[in-house]
């Protein structure tokens, strides 16, 4: 078994969320009326955020949530119930509610003896609780000062720090019995610059599946300066172009392009319902031969990393597109069962109150051979995107948008004037075929992916690359 982000400790994490014998009885109750599979997902989540805004520590907030979600599967039907009551009585009640869909009966399903618990510990070096609050607040003040020092036109700065710890335990009637301890840390800076042209914003963030040791390698002053500079540069920006132009995406500018252009379309829940533009394309050329796309939950420390997914399956590395050829989709337990294959470790849920579904982890394009500067130099006219914002896709049509938050014109092979923010629009399969250059640089960016009302942390990554034509949605005719 690959160990992704934690160490396999082989014993239960403390404190135990629910005792093993209680889990056994709850699973038995869940399938007593004919369910084919039952699962108990227990979660204990704590979070703390601190916000520095308008020149002061505005607010500290902390919270805790714990509970269990119970799933019972019968045929194509899933029954689900959740409860914040982790007592045996509370769990049994939830099990009966989840089993209500299985009321047509059957003989009942035998519970396979649970495997020995695979318990993973966090690999965080400095746990948040071991760090003084004052040390966390100093980071915010530093980022604020650094951002404001960039120039008098910086009129507002908001810096925020967030820490979270999520302990999960998954047990199923098929014998799955695993736990994980996930520790994450995030730091954001948002600046507003004011000038004759109005207000502009600049954003920079860092987020990793790590403890407070994140700040051993991340300089928050630098984050503040980057966000401020980004806002300032846009005060002089000209309107973004309108229409189809060549686009060079900087390495690590977001990677959201692949997340939207094909990532979602390769999620098996869309595939089994024939609602993805990538249905029936297995083994076919779906992208430029330069493209090799990977989804990998095992990349230690990345924002979308974990040891087990929210169905208890160890994280794994999945090659989705290899040299332009579609090699696999992403799978959770339910959709994999339908195809008679194993899950790919992509079953995730926001909290115990949600059903798992197919989700990405860290999705990235592998680096190529070219020099990033050469790619720009060989682009006579176009747009250089230094930083992307979010995006959105319609998986059935493949049409997707992604926004820029720092972009420049390319004129005669040189990066020149800054551009105002805009969305770009394209069609996934078309844009993937139009990638004609990939550089040897690479970096990742954290993001939050929303699907069907659930948000999960994901990583996106890409080297510098060029798309020969994509529609830029600015106002400059």
């Amino acid at each position, binding site marked *: 078994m690959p160990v992704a982000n934690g160490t396999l400790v082989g014993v239960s994490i403390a404190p135990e969320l629910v005792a093993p014998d209680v889990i056994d009885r709850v699973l038995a109750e869940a399938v007593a009326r004919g369910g084919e599979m039952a699962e108990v997902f227990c979660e204990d989540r704590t979070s703390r955020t601190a916000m520095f*805004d*308008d020149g*002061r*520590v*505005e*607010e*500290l*907030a*902390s919270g*805790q*949530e714990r509970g269990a979600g119970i799933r019972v599967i019968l045929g194509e*039907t*899933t*029954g*689900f*119930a959740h409860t*914040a009551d982790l007592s045996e009585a509370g769990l049994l009640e*939830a099990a009966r*509610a989840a089993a*209500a*869909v299985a009321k047509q009966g059957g003989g009942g399903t035998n519970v396979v003896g649970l495997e020995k618990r695979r318990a993973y510990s966090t690999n965080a070096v400095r746990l948040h609780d071991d760090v003084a609050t*004052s040390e966390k607040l100093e980071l915010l003040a530093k980022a604020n000062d650094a951002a404001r020092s960039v120039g008098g036109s910086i009129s*507002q700065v908001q810096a925020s720090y967030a820490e979270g710890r999520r302990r999960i335990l998954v047990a199923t009637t098929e014998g799955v019995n695993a736990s994980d301890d996930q520790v994450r840390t995030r730091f954001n800076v948002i600046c*507003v610059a*004011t000038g004759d042209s*109005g*207000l*502009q*914003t600049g954003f920079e963030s860092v987020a990793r599946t790590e403890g407070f040791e994140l700040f051993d390698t991340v300089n928050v002053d630098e984050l503040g300066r980057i966000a401020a500079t980004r806002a300032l540069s846009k005060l002089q920006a000209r309107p*973004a172009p*309108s*229409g*189809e132009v060549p686009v060079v995406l900087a390495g690590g500018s977001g990677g959201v392009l692949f997340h939207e252009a094909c990532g979602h379309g390769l999620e098996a829940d*869309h595939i089994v*319902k024939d*609602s993805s533009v990538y249905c029936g394309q297995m083994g076919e050329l779906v992208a430029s031969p330069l493209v090799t796309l990977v989804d990998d939950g095992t990349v230690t420390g990345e924002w979308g990393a974990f040891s087990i997914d929210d169905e208890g399956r160890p994280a794994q590395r999945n090659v989705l597109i290899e040299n332009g050829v579609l090699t696999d989709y992403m799978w959770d337990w339910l959709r994999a069962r339908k195809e008679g294959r194993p899950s790919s470790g992509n079953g995730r849920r926001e909290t115990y109150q949600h059903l798992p579904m197919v989700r990405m982890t860290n999705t990235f394009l592998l680096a190529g051979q070219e020099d990033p500067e050469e790619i720009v130099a060989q682009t006579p006219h176009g747009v250089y995107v230094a930083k992307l*914002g979010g*995006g*959105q*896709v*319609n998986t*059935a*049509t493949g*049409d*997707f*948008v992604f*926004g820029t938050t720092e972009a420049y014109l390319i004129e005669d092979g040189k990066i020149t004037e800054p551009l105002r*923010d*805009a*969305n770009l*629009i*394209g*069609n996934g399969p078309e844009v993937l075929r139009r990638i004609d250059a990939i550089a040897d640089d690479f970096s990742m960016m954290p993001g939050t992916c929303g699907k069907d009302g659930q948000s999960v942390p994901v990583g996106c990554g890409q080297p510098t690359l060029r798309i020969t034509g994509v*529609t*830029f*949605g*600015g*106002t*400059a*005719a």
Partner: protein
Amino acid sequence: MSELLELATRVIEQANGKEGIEAYVARGTDTELRIYDGAIESLSTATSAGIGVRVLIEGNEGAQVGFAWSGSLDHEAVDRALREARENAHFASPDPYVALAQLDGVAPSDLALTSATFDELTLDDKIAMTTELEAMTRGGDPRIRQVDSADFGDGIVESAIASTTGIRVSSQRSNAFLSVSALAGDGDETQTGSGFSVGRSAGELDLREASSQAIERSVRMLGAAKVPSMKTTVVFDPRVTSTILSVLGGALSGEAVVKGRSFFEGRLGERVANQDVNLVDDPTNPLAYGAAIFDGEGLACRRNVLINQGILEAFVYDTVAARRAGTSSTGSATRGGYGGTPGAGCRAIVLSPGEQGAAEILSGIERGLYVQSITGVHSGVSPVSGDFSVGAEGLMIRNGAFAEPVREVTVASTMQAMLLNLTAIGNDLTWLPGAACGQTLAIADFQLSGS
């Protein structure tokens, strides 16, 4: 006194001399159901509850505020939330503007937000209704090739707020929705469309309406293609208008304005829109999805006129933003459940209807783009700068009538320009989920980007 208000009151009664405390308690019961291919794909039922506590410590240089929440109402969890909120308060900067809401004498409206017939339909009725919605959509047009989800949900949420400044309120609301997503086309082409119906109980929902929307919206997009870039008038469908007005509401938040994060800053009393524009936020309107009796701090929600005949008249405020701006709360505190702190925001924005219906507006347009859905709102629309760029799909309008379908284009402008370039405001007010009402809008001078 409701059980939740009793609990909130017990928490705030633990305040010591220099402390102010506010407790927000909420509990909800939900059913969610998804039908696929004539069978139940998933059925979920649950109750969830939690508490959010704010503690203020008064000092000479102002108050420090701390917040903590818990996703449970058991004793231990509630005590922990109060204890952590106290600890957190000690680390905040003292701020003279930080305060809890003060009762302001505005009487709460007598809205009935819980349907008297909420329990009338059984779970089996709801399953039958959603199954029928799916079948009706699949069979409604030969060009529909797939219905990837047909969903039903309903629930009741109760909440209560108590504070050491004398707030004691509780309220309850019910809601229900049906939604369906359809795919039209053959093997070579797919177009999508969704339909929904919302209400306060399952019995109020209109499955025919939801189904026909999904069918019409997907089928009429068949054959859609990119069009060349152009300057053009854009007509927004009521759903799109509702989304745009919600973002505009973000720029009208007094908190954003007073912190220099809104393009409306410094423009009070000035002309910001065409003179036909009258914009109010009115959560006391029972038709509004966001209708509410109390705001997120327990003050009575009220009608606030924000833009009057094109002139910017007011912003919406919670207590702290109002004090910072030297004014008083407009009863507009919103909070994202028990895990969030209050901020200023709109709940029920309405743009006063004009004279024309959708058909009349269309008939007056020689060439334009009718937009039925937009994408990338969070990445391409900024309530700070006002920059506006979104992906769009819909139909060309030629000589006053719908012409060829269009996809994979963007439309761009600025929110400032859009308010001034409004050429028609529909009389077809459509109450939709979210913070704003929808209607047909025509706005001139968009840059459409295509091929």
